[in-house]
């Protein structure tokens, strides 16, 4: 099977006072048609910058400094800006965390869905109006024929996120990138939106790149998971592998620090803080916080090692022993 999206050695750096600080560092992954890849990480891990890089929406002082992004066998990084505009929204869509700010307050939701269709020449003005109602129906907004004339402030947070999903799906893209799509929502609304994303994925044959910090959301939604730390992917595996047999100490730490094992006991926290990207250690970026840290970790950033079928981890604990090869 050919991957729908194939990111290779992507590096996106920010020019801070004349120094190039990589926020995304040599990131590679594939996304197959119909697959959901969960990109997990904390703030500053580079997961959102990865999403923006795929759509070439990184703003100065940030810029993509290396790598390739193959989408349907074209390298998005070599397309002209005009060609890239035809990709955005039509072939690859993006939905954000903040359903409160992502919609334009002075246009009706119908206008905003129609705009997506008109920009890409997918419908005439009168067709667009009809399509808007159908899309609102598809995302299960109650009373779509009336709601299409509503302004964003008349909708709740969950309804706005449904509208954003409708806009994202208007041109029937092949890939939907969802950056923390449920983080700002209440848990019952989050559950509805996750159900909706799953349903839309099946109905529109979408691939989904789901960016989140919430391992519960990942477990419910993703087929495969890539864990990011300080700009790099540190572990990648099918979702069951990540939860059943995590190999990187950071992934293990994230899983064991969650509440829920024995109430009232101390949580097994990861000590220390997320490193400053402008002052990364010479070796493994997780080294200073790692419970399994040893001499080799301070020498150079570890490469990704294969640790099982379709499972790799960026950790010296998993280096092949001498004589194995």
């Amino acid at each position, binding site marked *: 099977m050919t991957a729908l999206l194939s990111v290779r050695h992507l590096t996106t750096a920010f020019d801070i006072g004349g120094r190039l600080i990589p926020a995304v560092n040599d990131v590679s992954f594939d996304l197959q048609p119909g697959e959901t890849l969960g990109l997990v990480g*904390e*703030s500053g891990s580079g997961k959102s910058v990865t999403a923006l890089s795929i759509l070439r929406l990184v703003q100065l002082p940030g810029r993509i400094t290396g790598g390739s992004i193959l989408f349907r066998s074209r390298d998005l990084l070599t397309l002209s800006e005009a060609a890239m505009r035809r990709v955005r929204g039509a072939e690859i869509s993006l939905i954000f965390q903040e359903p409160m700010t992502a919609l334009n307050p002075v246009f009706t939701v119908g206008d905003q869905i129609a705009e997506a269709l008109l920009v890409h020449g997918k419908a005439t003005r009168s067709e667009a109006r009809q399509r808007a109602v159908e899309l609102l129906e598809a995302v299960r907004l109650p009373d779509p024929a009336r709601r299409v004339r509503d302004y964003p402030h008349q909708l709740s947070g969950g309804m706005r996120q449904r509208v954003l999903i409708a806009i994202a799906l208007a041109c029937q893209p092949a890939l939907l990138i969802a950056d923390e799509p449920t983080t700002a929502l*209440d*848990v*019952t*609304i*989050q*559950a509805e939106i*996750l*159900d909706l994303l799953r349903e839309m994925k099946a109905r529109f044959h979408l691939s989904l790149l789901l960016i989140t*910090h*919430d*391992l*519960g*959301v*990942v*477990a*419910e939604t993703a087929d495969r998971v890539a864990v990011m730390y300080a700009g790099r992917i540190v572990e990648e595996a099918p*979702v*069951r592998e990540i*939860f059943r047999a995590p190999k990187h100490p950071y992934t293990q*730490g*994230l*899983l064991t*620090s*969650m*509440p*829920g094992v024995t*109430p*009232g006991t*101390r*949580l*097994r*926290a*990861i*000590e220390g*803080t*997320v490193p400053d990207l402008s002052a990364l250690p010479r070796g493994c970026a997780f080294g200073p916080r790692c419970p399994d840290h040893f001499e080799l970790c301070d020498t150079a950033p570890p490469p990704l090692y294969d640790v099982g079928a379709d499972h790799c981890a960026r950790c010296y604990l998993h280096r092949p022993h001498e004589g194995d090869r």
Partner: protein
Amino acid sequence: MASAGDVPLLDVRHLTKEFQQRHGLWQPRAVMRAVHDVSFTIDEGQTFGLVGESGSGKTTTGRCILRLIEPTSGEVWFRGENVLGYSREQLRRARRHMQIVFQDPYSSLNPRMRARQIVEEPLVIHKQGSRQQRRDRVAELFGLVGLDPMHLERYPHQFSGGQRQRIGLARALALNPSLIIADEPVSALDVSIQAQVVNLLMDLQQRLRLTYLFIAHDLRLVEHICARVAVMYRGRIVELGPTARLFTAPQHPYTRALLSAVPVPDPDAVRRRIPIQEEWFEPALPLREVTPGHWAAV
């Protein structure tokens, strides 16, 4: 609902807060009950969880207890005295014993004050100790919450989110309070930092015999640290009981719906979502004791 024998540290009775709302200049005023007849008790040294979604009234309840928002009616008994009957001066003195920690460590600390000044300020306001005694106390508090005393002179922006939350906690602890109202104290923090702050809260409770009112939307966290918990929906408590019972044998359909919506960090978990239904709340039923100590509006 008090435990048998001794008096609870905090006893909230029939707390109600109404806001006047006007949907347009010529529309008549409408009354919105943000908190509606809320009652619960917290024993000394206990952690009581108040959970609910946005708009459920959990934050307003916390603020009404401290009278940061004046409640419309009800009683708040703290160490056997009704806080709502206090004069301004009595309230100022009582606030020493009840402190609050806010959700957002980015907006809750004054950016123009040094960490030392932020932690020292309550001591100055309540005229505690000499300058030197206050300095010593601040250094002690820094150590208590796990901050490096070398960083006393730094400004808030020079700290990470987790460290800022520790500063907020040090400030809240400065006057040796017995009750801490913690309003979503870790929800703005990164996953790997949340556990550190939760551990700190539990350690401090043991060492200082603190009582917590823990306001949160994260049910997994509440299950982990709270002895008893109340679930709020649209201003009312719909269920209240010992945490273990409430999580394993929820009685109100809303509690079941809420629990069914929590994402489980296990790809093989069986998920059966329960959608919320309006008829569960119409008419609003009074709480009744289902099993000893476990109340539900069913």
